[in-house]
């Protein structure tokens, strides 16, 4: 039932993208996210998509995995699309029936918003979760946020918490699947019935899931204690982060990419004037 969901799962591989420095990947990710929300022109968005596909190919991630990542988001995407279409009334009128009004502006914004959301999810998976192990990711965050330690921000603890949360996503997805099957055997129904009864149905999954998460947390804490975990102080790293030639090359590619995006978004309209 839930086993196909890829959100938060690590996809094992030996690609360029896998071996990039996670600090660099985090910066790349933030830059990309900013771009998604700053850019509006279809050509610029198109370029972003092309860039994303290049990253996907670099990461050797099969389309099937990408599809599994996007699949669970389809209902939300549809909802955003419909809401935007129906509520934004800029531009020319295209269709009108009783209270329903669809305009070019509404459609444009609907496409843009759902596209942005979809790209957000996919890029998070491609750059971060699918190709970077949570431990590496938390290490990168710890390094990038390092300066905040000065103001006593618990950087290491935050990073550790995040990596454990990510590490447990697949385990909890499997567990949810098991619990759902068990409750379905007892007559629970998650697909049909009224909204309220479906919400009630999910209680039968959520409570056992919470209970087991607490138990897991407790056992994990004991196990970490037993393995001498004592916060970030004095820890060494198996694979310490260091910048390689690949990172430099990717950085230059990124700079060129960013420059071309700015050109497309800002300069192109000026020229056509």
């Amino acid at each position, binding site marked *: 039932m839930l086993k*196909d969901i890829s959100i938060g799962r690590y996809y094992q591989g030996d690609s360029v993208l896998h071996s990039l420095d996670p600090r660099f990947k985090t910066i790349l990710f933030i830059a990309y996210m900013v771009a998604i929300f700053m850019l509006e022109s279809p050509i610029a968005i198109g370029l972003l998509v092309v860039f994303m596909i290049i990253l996907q190919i670099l990461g050797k991630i099969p389309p099937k995995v990408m599809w599994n990542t996007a699949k669970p988001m389809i209902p939300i995407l549809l909802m955003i699309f419909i809401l935007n279409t129906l509520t934004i009334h800029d531009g020319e009128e295209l269709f009108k029936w009783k209270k329903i009004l669809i305009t070019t502006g509404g459609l444009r914004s609907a496409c843009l918003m759902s596209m942005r959301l979809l790209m957000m999810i996919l890029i998070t998976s491609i750059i971060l979760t699918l190709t970077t192990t949570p431990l590496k990711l938390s290490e990168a965050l710890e390094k990038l946020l390092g300066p905040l330690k000065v103001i006593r921000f618990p950087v290491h603890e935050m990073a550790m918490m995040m990596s454990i949360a990510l590490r447990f996503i697949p385990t909890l997805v499997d567990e949810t699947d098991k619990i759902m099957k068990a409750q379905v*055997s007892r007559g629970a129904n998650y697909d049909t019935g009224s909204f309220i009864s479906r919400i009630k149905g999910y209680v039968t999954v959520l409570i056992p899931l919470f209970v087991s998460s607490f138990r897991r947390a407790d056992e994990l804490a004991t196990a970490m204690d037993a393995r001498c975990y004592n916060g970030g102080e004095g820890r060494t790293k198996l694979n310490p982060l260091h910048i390689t030639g690949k990172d430099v090359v990717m950085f230059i590619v990124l700079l060129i990419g960013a420059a071309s995006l700015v050109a497309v978004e800002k300069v192109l309209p000026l020229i056509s004037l």
Partner: protein
Amino acid sequence: MAKPAVKTTDITFSYEGSEKLAVDKARLELEEGSYVALLGANGSGKSTLAKLIDVLEVQDDGTIEVFGIDTKDEDRFWDIRRNTACVFQNPDNQIVGTTVEEDVAFGPENIGVPNPELRERVDKALRYVGLYDRRESSAAKLSGGQKQKLAIAGVLAMAPKLLLLDEATAMLDPVSRDEFLLLIEKLVREKGITVLTITHDMTEASRTDKVYVMDKGMIALEGEPRDILNDVPRMLEAGLDSPIYSKLIWELKNVTGKSYKHEDCTSIISALRYMSDNFFGVKIKAPKREEISKETLVNIKNLSYRYEDNGRFALKDIDLQIHKGELLAIVGRSGCGKTTLVTHLNGIIRPQGDGDVEFRYGDEVLSTTRKKDIKKIRQKVGLVFQYPEYQLFEETVYKDIAYGPKMMGITGDELDKAVREAAKKVGLADEVLDQSPFELSGGQQRRVAMAGVIAMEPEVLVLDEPAAGLDPKGRRSMFETISKLKEKGTTIVLVTHYMDEAYEHADRICTMKDGMIMGVKTPVEMFENKEEVRDMEIRSPYLRRYLEIVAIKLGLDSVSKKNLLMAQSVREAALLIGGKDA
């Protein structure tokens, strides 16, 4: 005599907010380099004692010295932790790293081992347990057995002197369990690590140097395994179990009215000597067997199941009839498709292609291929998954049991009756019904979960490893419950790794391998041909293997031997040998 690795005075400890003493004047001493088992029923205080040794808890009274360091000495407490490693029961809840090597490195990273020594330690540990080729795999993708080996690699990378195993094999299948035990024994032998293993597995205990038995927080027995484990009445009293050979002699003495001394059978050899001294050349009658019905209740036809993502077959061309009123055991290695098969029985997974699962309901034939039949089938076929206690969710036991029948549309007095009867069938007392299920012990919780399925009054009850993780006493009482359900007419499908339990309780055994059915036979027939058994990748029950030796030692004629090998339980074997009607 070697130095002690752990030495304690009388230890007392109770958890915060609990008046009950979890550990009550327990005293223990582990010699350096020894392999020691700590046995006891669930809740007897074993795990707590282990936690005290690794300073995960601190005792109220008494002192514990680990390699000469007092656990209360706060300055040196990290020295104890560094030298002591633990492996716990649930493999999933002790993995911190995402990839295999990241997880192995977690411990040494914590104590600040620098590179390149760190890399060396990790690689060496992974090679030792045989996971080096998987070092970059995602840890979540390993099998249960591999995850426990990963935990051991994490231990080795810390280079500890003491290893505490807290039911580390409880969630493994017999093959993985054997591999794990061999690995531990290798550690003791080659690295001189002191090992304390907490276990419910008596075979595991019999392979150690010394055994402690805990009962209600106290050390009830200690000594060499052969002296402790063969004391059948004492072991039963502590909620534990004994080896087959001593149990057979104990039952024989019960049958013949003699008193049992465990000195008679401290080893297989002395047990066999006792047998041949007293019962040489006896004539053994065939045990009586009741006829079981051949009326088909569930008919599985041409069932195959392929995974969507990789196209691999989980099930292939399954044809199987489940008879009304029987207990059918399904056995086979982990990953052979047992669970996938039983998940088809109530339509949680619908048949692919032209496969079909039919259920005879009076004159009607229901099929899981038809959507409208599914609800009825779910009521008639109850499925209890592995570790069902993890699915409880209601405020009270009563409400939780009532959930299933309520969803089936049962209300009012009828609902109340269904709940109470189901609770009674699984042996839950009335006063438990108003409690929160989360306050109960693990064993009780499992019974609540079972009652929740039984309350729907299913005709077929499917149990996936119902006794997994229970102590020997819990296992016995679980099977008593199952036998009672069967007597009342419920058809039972039992998925299990435990061949002896399948052998004792099943009317027929269905063996699976690589998604296919290798054979469906009565238990006695299933294990007659040794080559077949080997091909099916299962192993004969301990009882049967032992009785084969007994038959030779007693010099039985071929008829008597055949009759003896029809015994499906120790008790039955004792009755046959003792000349009483079985």
